[in-house]
């Protein structure tokens, strides 16, 4: 029988030097960043649609100084957080259980992988019809978007638990709750964290797209309205802010992943 491999591809051992990147690499990396900014600058000089980096950063600073950005940012972020946390609460236990229960997993697999392929944002109009425009429908969308990646990686991690650990749990007469919390959850935590990182970024994207479609408040809506008003520099500033937020979240998860791996 060929088990379906749900685990993300493992990084092979590197052939080059291991450890901190070489100074050459750091210099090149910085060089790429500088080139990108130069490219942006050139584009702003050539086209009147593209504002210069300085203008955009100044606009972003102004938005924070005036305080106009806080409410939309809070709205977007809280929708993502609520949905994301709800998705964890449902997907992690379900994934651990499915990973340990072969028949149930085999029955559920085509549904899960099939639904994972469906662009989540199309359910947004349905959520709008149920909850109306507002935080609730965005939160639900965030939850649905984060649910599938978390579920899939948790299943992968749960299936990969070494059989010796389950034997240990049995011989120590661990109860179901103890086995799940102390053995399964701990041993699958690396895979789960990968799912959390992907889930967080997908739910953030989904909420932004949803706000571009219809919202009362939020960063996506601000992009939309500043575009409509042809305030391009303001629009770029919000796009920049969205990018920074996404990078911060991703970086935070990467740090947690690294910390746990070195434990």
């Amino acid at each position: 029988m060929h088990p379906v491999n749900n685990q993300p591809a493992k990084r092979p051992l590197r052939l080059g030097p291991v450890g901190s990147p070489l100074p050459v690499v750091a210099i090149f990396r910085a060089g790429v960043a500088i080139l990108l900014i130069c490219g942006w600058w050139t584009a702003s000089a050539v086209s009147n649609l593209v504002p210069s980096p300085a203008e955009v950063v100044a606009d972003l600073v102004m938005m924070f100084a005036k305080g106009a950005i806080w409410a939309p940012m809070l709205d977007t972020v809280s929708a993502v957080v609520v949905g994301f946390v709800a998705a964890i609460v449902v997907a992690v236990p379900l994934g651990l259980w499915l990973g340990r229960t072969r028949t149930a997993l085999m029955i559920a697999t085509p549904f899960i992988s099939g639904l994972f392929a469906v662009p989540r944002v199309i359910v947004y109009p349905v959520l709008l019809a149920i909850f109306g425009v507002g935080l609730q429908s965005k939160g639900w969308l965030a939850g649905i978007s984060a649910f599938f990646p978390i579920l899939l990686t948790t299943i992968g991690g749960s299936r990969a638990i070494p059989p010796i650990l389950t034997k240990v749990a049995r011989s120590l007469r661990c109860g179901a709750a103890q086995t799940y919390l102390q053995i399964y959850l701990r041993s699958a935590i690396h895979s789960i964290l990968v799912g959390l990182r992907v889930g967080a970024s997908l739910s953030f994207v989904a909420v932004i797209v949803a706000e571009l479609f219809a919202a009362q408040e939020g960063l996506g809506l601000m992009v939309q309205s500043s575009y409509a008003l042809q305030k391009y520099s303001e629009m770029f500033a919000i796009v920049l802010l969205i990018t920074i937020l996404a990078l911060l979240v991703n970086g935070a998860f990467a740090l947690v992943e690294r910390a746990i791996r070195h434990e």
Partner: protein
Amino acid sequence: MNGTQDDRNGAIIWIGRISATIGIFAALEALTQVGVISAVVFPPPSKIAVELARLLGTSHFWGDAGRTLIELVLSCVFGLPAGVIIGIALAASTTARDVFEPYLVTLYAIPTVVFYPILLALMGLGSGPIIAIAAFMVMVPVALNTIVAITGVSSQLIKLSRSLRCTPLQRIWKIVLPSSAPVLFAGVKLGIMYGIVGTISMEFILADKGIGFRVGNEYNNFAILSMWAHIAVIVVFAMAISAALDQVERRLRMDLQ
């Protein structure tokens, strides 16, 4: 595990899948017919099926479907080779990989979709910005998986290619690509799935035509039944593509074993 037990398990699994499908539809039908779920929000599945059958007979629908399909295919035509080529280039040099990989991973994390107004200004309303963003979303996972796939090729195979005096092109075409095929294909599959998500989401927010656009548009027209029929089309399409790609992937893995 012996054959008969395998067969019996297979049968249980299929019975489980089929009864789960029937159960879900029956429950939805019952709940919507009785009125527990408001028919305004979620019409009974039987009505959606009837609407879908009507829709399939209209030229209107095929215009939308054709537009979406062309956008998806073009985004893959641009995105897949770009991803593979970038992946091969970065896999070839450790320094290049160390320099560019963090940027590539970053592109994964940021919502590319928010760049649409810029593209809209440059390319105008139509398929252009949709294909550009979807192709980009296809490229990133393909490039990342290609790097993993190619750096994972056994060094013995590379040595063999050297002692056979393969040209670099031969080495890539005859040794590296076939032996990294399963991981490479996992990237291609992910890329195509991202392409579907990108195309549909982009249509949803900015198009003038296409299935994703129609879902949003029918919602705005309060045509909930038609909206659901279009959602059903997208769900079935995405599930079918994902199942087909899974099948190909399984075959590739089996070939290798």
